[in-house]
């Protein structure tokens, strides 16, 4: 697979690893935050951490749209489906995220709500077209990457006069989140308000940047003095970006560099940006799970498209979402805690029984630690013993 296989070359990886090992200053630590869940996933799936010198550690950022969606928004989506009887269309990632009272979209579906997994906003439009008697609500989530497809669907719906289609908009913007993380981590020189783990460098968003370009991250070195490298999602991309950050750090400079030049420019995709500007407007503030209410950090359906706004068409009560006690997702999402620092990790919280969103998405840090990495981690003993007790198996065929 072109543009994939080349960037997963194990031989190149070993040589790049040697270079990184050679270039790091053994007298200091390098704490690099990968913003995106895509990076987190790659790091664990390919075992990238194994190839890094011990003093270079990845901190996992909030870049998993599923993980940062506040519970209350899922509660609202379920309420729309159950109270208004709408057909709720959702990307599969969201199905198992715990909402209040440990409900999930999957459970709501099992209980009779009409919830459909889609793979594209086009699927939601198609359902609206063929099932004219039903109100179809697209449960739209995601960063700037996933927003333009929602924008296209809105335009199409209006052009076709689809009166039974609307969007429950939960699209969020990455720069405000990054700003919050850095401010909170004390990277601006002040006291971090939620912790004091300074970050030495940022692996910047990959596919988000194909849309918005790298320019929106230039405030990071300017205001926080922290270097940024826009990094692709393949494991060699991640490693090369780490090397680029090490070099900036070693040189004492801080700028935005672009490792992912094959897809990202400084200005991004102008057509997509224009579509987003037409169909969405900014929200004054929006809650990010773990980060709190951040100003200007999310989008709403634009006034010109208000008739397609599910929040207006199907009003439901908005609550606060009752988080599960003991879940450290908020700190994990800010890079303050590792998943294994959470008391629930592995003992109560596992991917099939998740307490927080970070354990659901394969891009969530907790799920990545659990599924790929628990061989390696200090507190994993609990987790392992939580998994199997003693011998003798149970297999799918030997049921019931």
């Amino acid at each position, binding site marked *: 697979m072109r543009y994939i296989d080349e960037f997963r070359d194990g031989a190149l990886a070993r040589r790049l690893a040697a270079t990184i090992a*050679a270039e790091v200053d053994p007298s200091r630590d390098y704490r690099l935050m990968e913003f995106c869940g895509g990076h987190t996933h790659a790091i664990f799936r390919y075992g990238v951490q194994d190839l*890094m010198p011990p003093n270079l550690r990845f901190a996992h950022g909030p870049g998993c749209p599923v993980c940062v969606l506040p519970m209350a928004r899922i509660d609202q989506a379920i309420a729309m489906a159950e109270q208004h009887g709408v057909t709720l269309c959702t990307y599969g990632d969201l199905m198992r995220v715990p909402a209040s009272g440990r409900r999930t979209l999957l459970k709501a579906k099992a209980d009779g709500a009409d919830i459909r997994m889609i793979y594209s906003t086009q699927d939601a439009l198609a359902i609206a077209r063929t099932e004219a008697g039903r109100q179809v609500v697209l449960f739209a989530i995601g960063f700037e990457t996933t927003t333009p497809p929602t924008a296209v669907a809105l335009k199409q719906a209006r052009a076709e006069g689809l009166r039974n289609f609307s969007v429950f908009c939960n699209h969020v913007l990455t720069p405000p989140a990054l700003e919050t993380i850095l401010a909170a981590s004390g990277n601006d020189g002040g006291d971090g308000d939620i912790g004091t783990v300074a970050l030495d460098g940022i692996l910047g968003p990959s596919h988000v940047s194909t849309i918005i370009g790298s320019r929106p991250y230039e405030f990071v070195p300017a205001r926080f003095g922290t270097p940024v490298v826009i990094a692709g999602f393949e494991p060699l991309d991640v490693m090369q970006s780490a090397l680029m950050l090490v070099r900036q750090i070693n040189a004492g400079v801080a700028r935005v560099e672009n490792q992912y*030049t094959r897809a990202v420019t400084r200005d991004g995709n102008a057509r997509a940006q224009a*579509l987003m500007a037409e169909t969405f407007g900014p929200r004054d503030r929006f809650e990010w799970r773990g980060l709190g209410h951040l100003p200007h950090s999310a989008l709403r359906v634009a006034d010109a498209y208000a008739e397609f706004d599910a929040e207006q068409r199907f009003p439901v009560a908005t609550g606060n979402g009752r988080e599960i006690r003991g879940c450290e997702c908020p700190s994990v999402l800010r890079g303050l805690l590792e998943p294994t620092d959470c008391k629930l990790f592995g003992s109560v919280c596992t991917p099939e029984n998740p307490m927080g969103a970070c354990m659901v998405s394969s891009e969530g840090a907790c799920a990545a630690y659990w599924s790929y990495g628990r061989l390696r981690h200090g507190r994993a003993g609990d987790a392992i013993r939580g998994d199997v007790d003693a011998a003798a198996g149970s297999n799918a065929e030997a049921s019931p």
Partner: protein
Amino acid sequence: MCLAIPAQILDLDPATDSATVSLGGVRKSVSVALVEDVAVGDYVLVHVGYALNRISPQEAERTLALIREAGALDAEAAPGA
């Protein structure tokens, strides 16, 4: 969530603003409403059924060259070796 895959355009249908792309022999129809001036043969990044962006072959080659160059230093010092 931000999963996006490079795939090659096999043909374009301007009427529906869509294209058939191929990834390792797998064909899929995607919307090209978000990309300007793509042509058959181009590689695009596909995300939730949409082409997000063209991939630049030159830049890809340059990145690989940089990686090879960086890795040429000293293969023996690597922990994974």
